[in-house]
C-alpha cells in the first residue's frame, strides 16, 4: 500500500491532491426497514475482522506516507450510503454474499417484528470515510 501511495505521489503534480474514500469499519452499519417517512432500525451490521485488519493496514500506510512527508493531511469526514433491497430476504442474501460485512446482522427487533415486515423494503446504511491529502511536492 505504501508503494502504491508513493507512486500516486510521483504522478501527482505539485499542489496535487490525493483522495482516499472507503467504507468506515470503525463504525457499524445498520439494517433498516424503509417506512413511508424515514427508516426503522432493525439491526446492526459489523465489518468482518479480516476487513477491519485491512483497513487498519490502510490507515498505517496513509500515516507512513504522511510521516515521510509525501503528503499533508487535509479535510476529512464521513458520510452515509444506503443500499436498498426489495425485502428482508434480499438484505440477508446480500449480507451472506458480501465479503466485507458480517454474514448476519445483529437484530435489535424481535423475530415476530422481522417476520411481520419481511416483505417491506429494507436498506443497509453504511458509513463511508474520506480524506483529502495534499502532495508536499515543492513547485517547480
Amino acid at each position, binding site marked *: 500500500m505504501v508503494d502504491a501511495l508513493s507512486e500516486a505521489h510521483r504522478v501527482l503534480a*505539485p499542489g496535487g491532491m490525493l483522495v482516499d474514500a*472507503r467504507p468506515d469499519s470503525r463504525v457499524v452499519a445498520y439494517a433498516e426497514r424503509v417506512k413511508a417517512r424515514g427508516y426503522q432500525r432493525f439491526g446492526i451490521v459489523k465489518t468482518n475482522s479480516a476487513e477491519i485488519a485491512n483497513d487498519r493496514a490502510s490507515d498505517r500506510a496513509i500515516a507512513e506516507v504522511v510521516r515521510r512527508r509525501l503528503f499533508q493531511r487535509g479535510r476529512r469526514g464521513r*458520510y452515509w*450510503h444506503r443500499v436498498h433491497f*426489495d425485502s428482508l430476504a434480499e438484505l440477508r442474501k446480500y449480507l451472506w454474499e458480501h465479503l466485507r460485512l458480517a454474514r448476519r446482522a445483529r437484530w435489535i427487533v424481535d423475530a415476530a417484528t422481522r417476520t411481520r415486515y419481511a416483505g417491506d423494503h429494507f436498506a443497509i446504511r453504511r458509513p463511508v470515510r474520506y480524506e483529502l491529502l495534499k502532495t508536499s511536492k515543492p513547485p517547480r
Partner: protein
Amino acid sequence: MKNTGPGWVSGVGKQFPAQASALRPRPLEELREWGGARLVRGKRLLDLGCGDGRFALGVALYASTVDGIDPDAAAVAAARKLARKNGVRNARFAVGAGQRLPYPDDAFDVVVLSWTL
C-alpha cells in the same frame, strides 16, 4: 454526517455480485461529499483502482482528462465499453497495478482512491 443514497437496487444479490459498483455511492454524490466539482473541474484525474469506471466516467464531465487503472482486465474492458457507449472522449483506461503506474511524473492534478485502498 449526511445521508446519501442511490435509487432502488432491485433484486440485489441476484443480479449483481456483492462488490459491484452498482451498490456504491453515485460518483457525483461522492464528489459532493469531498468538496464538490471544483475538486476536479478542469483537472487531470487518475482513478486508481477504477474497476468498471464507475467513478471515472461519472466525473469525466468536469475533469479535463480522466485516466483509470485497474489490475482487473475484464473490469477495464467494461470501463472502455461504457466510455464508448456514453460517448466519453476524455477518459482512458489501462490495466495495471498501483505499485507501478505507467504514467510520467507530475501527470495528474488529482488521484482518487475510491473504495480501493
